[in-house]
């Protein structure tokens, strides 16, 4: 039992932090978020060059063979800078699904391209009626010749705007919320019959609703065995949740540092506001929430690396619930302690608040994961 980083991991951490420091000043981030694309292809190329896009992939598909702990270290840094590049969508989700369930041919065709930064991915799983239930899939894939025809509406696909290929969950059999009968397909994002409504999200990112109208795909689009995708989806989204927890930890720590510093500078009634006991204790509570979140994020990364399925599920649910609560509290109170300044788009703290608000919601909000944990514990 050991919570400390190895020397190698510390080096990795330094390089993540350098990247953020060099590229993600508050101004630079704001500018980037306001571009049409919403992130930088230059950064993406740099991340590929540094080997980060291959970090979680195993060595036999050309990856770095990193553990969940290394992803955690990376995501914490990304959280500190509110980094905008679609790492989770492309590498953890899209790449993760393909590496987990793909045929050798699919893996070979896609993963190296992802690692080199030539291909971006997104995962289309949510639907208007599904809320946070991964099994609530009404998008239909019906057999047609040797392939399939897809029909349905996928909601809020993060980075569905820029992905080259989209991994889509669709129902090949069963009823709306059956776990059995769900399949995954790899679909080109410009295939005929696919239409998109692109938009911005409150955290400064890009997402899309994607509509499938008689989209014909070949048999080679099927990812894994037909109808058995649910456990794969659950596992890969659990890895994504762990990554988001680490991102939230980094964002909370940064928000706390910014707020703490502001409290030392900002004077009211002739004294720094950090001298008022009520605000001090609020800041202590924010610090404690971030500390508790850091522990849960470390815990969940290490649990993922232990490989036990039930333990993974419980750990992820617990971590997401705790981090979600903490994210709301830290984000909201950061604004409050900044007063009017916290309400302005120009100042950085509001952007932390909004990303933390979104992380709380992504892949199931706090309530959802409390319920999930309770169900797993009973």
């Amino acid at each position: 039992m050991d919570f400390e980083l190895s020397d190698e991991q510390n080096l990795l951490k330094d390089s993540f932090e350098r990247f953020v420091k060099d590229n993600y000043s508050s101004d630079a981030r704001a500018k980037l978020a306001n571009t049409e694309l919403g992130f930088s292809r230059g950064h993406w190329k740099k991340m590929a060059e540094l080997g980060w896009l291959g970090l979680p992939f195993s060595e036999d598909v050309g990856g770095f063979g990193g553990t969940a702990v290394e992803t955690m270290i990376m995501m914490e840094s990304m959280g500190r800078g509110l980094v905008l590049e679609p790492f989770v969508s492309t590498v953890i989700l899209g790449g993760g699904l393909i590496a987990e369930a793909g045929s050798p041919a699919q893996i070979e065709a896609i993963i190296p391209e992802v690692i080199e930064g030539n291909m971006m991915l997104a995962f289309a799983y949510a639907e208007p009626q599904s809320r946070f239930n991964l099994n609530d899939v009404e998008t239909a894939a019906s057999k047609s010749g040797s392939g399939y025809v897809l029909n349905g509406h996928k909601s809020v696909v993060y980075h569905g705007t820029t992905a080259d290929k989209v991994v889509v969950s669709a129902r090949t059999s069963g009823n709306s919320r059956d776990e059995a009968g769900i399949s995954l397909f790899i679909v080109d994002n410009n295939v005929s019959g696919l239409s998109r409504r692109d938009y911005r999200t409150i955290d400064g990112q890009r997402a899309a609703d994607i509509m499938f109208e008689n989209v014909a795909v070949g048999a080679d689009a099927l990812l894994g065995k037909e109808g058995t995708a649910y456990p794969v989806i659950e596992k890969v989204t659990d890895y994504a949740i762990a990554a988001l927890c680490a991102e939230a930890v980094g964002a909370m720590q940064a928000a706390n540092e910014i707020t703490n510093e502001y409290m030392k500078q900002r004077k009211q009634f002739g004294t720094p506001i950090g001298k008022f006991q009520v605000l001090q204790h609020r800041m202590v509570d924010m610090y404690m929430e971030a500390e508790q979140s850091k522990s849960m994020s470390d815990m969940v990364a290490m649990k993922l690396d232990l490989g036990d399925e039930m333990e993974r599920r419980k750990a992820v649910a617990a971590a997401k619930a705790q981090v979600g609560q903490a994210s709301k509290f830290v984000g909201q109170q950061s604004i409050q302690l900044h007063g009017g300044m916290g309400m302005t788009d120009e100042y950085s703290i509001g952007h932390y608040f909004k990303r933390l608000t979104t992380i709380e919601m992504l892949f199931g909000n706090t309530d959802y994961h409390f319920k999930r944990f309770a169900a797993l514990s009973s």
Partner: protein
Amino acid sequence: MDLSFSKEDLAFQDEVREFLATSLPTDVKDRCDRGLHPTKEGQIRWQKILNEKGWMAPNWPKEYGGTGWTISQKYIAAHEFGQASAPIALPFGISMVGPVIYTFGNPEQKAKYLPRILNSDDWWCQGYSEPGSGSDLASLQTKAVRDGDHYVVNGQKIWTSFAHLADMIFCLVRTDSSAKQQEGISFLLIDMKTPGITVKPIYGIDKENTLNEVFFEDVRVPIENRIGEENKGWTYAKFLLGNERTGIARVARSKRQIVRLREIAAAERSGGKPLTEDQDFINKLTRLEIDLMALEYTELRYLSMIAKGKKLTAEPSLLKIKGTEIQQRLTELLVESLGMYGAPYEPERAYEGRNETPVGPDYANGPMAEHLYLRAATIYGGSNEIQRNIVSKMVLGL
């Protein structure tokens, strides 16, 4: 002690409902219902309808154009306006500067400004906060120096809501720098078109321009625009802050939001069932509803005390604290009810010009905008921390 309504009260209720059903413009109602800021044109159009009906100023004395309503009538009107999603009048004229003018202004000022406020001819804004003085309002630095029959004003205000739309601003300015902080302040009414005034927009975390900075550079303000005595402005400002705290509870609005939240939750699905069948969601909704009920009856209890001539001290601070906390929990729960459709967000600047329909269900357009904007509710009008300081000192004697 009696909660019952008289026959007259019930007739009044019918009248209010009838008026709202026939007179409230659909577009105005829709924006209000969603929690989006009113357009200037829509807001003025609606306020003029209200004034025509004679209902613009329920809290003003009758002699200045108030309605003369009883507590029951005020309660009924507020409730019905809330349920109908009828916007309340913008506070800056009717609730803030209006009462200052009829309480401390001279006859000329009353005659000049009050009718224009009632008829929404002037859009007012409030020049209180400055970059260095947020919660510590009395430390303000904007200076007004006498020059003949004018003041020459130099300085800067900040967080000025709707200054970019305003015709008039009421301002606290320092007229005596040698006096103690609270003693050298005067209260001026300034025409926004006066040369030397520059308004610079502040974009909020909601990506909207509601707040502004207002710069004053050698702005000449006639002495007759000063309310009351020179250097006594702090008295008028405190009076105004007291008034502001009661309105800020927004009970009727929150009651309507509860209904809206139920409507949305009934339409949303979780595990194939309406969200209204999710026990955890219901739990949060119920707690909100009951907290709001307690606030509603506290407000009525205080109004009843005032009506009986009892003097309140800092009790209205409670209304501000609880009211804004409830507003924030409500918008948070509204956003939560949307599931993943809480994430898409396109500020109106982009929205107004485009042809696409908003993403997600129709009701998803609004809650996040209001949620973001209302983070300020516990900051403005004296932050909730300041309000607790006030109660601690004035009510508890600590």
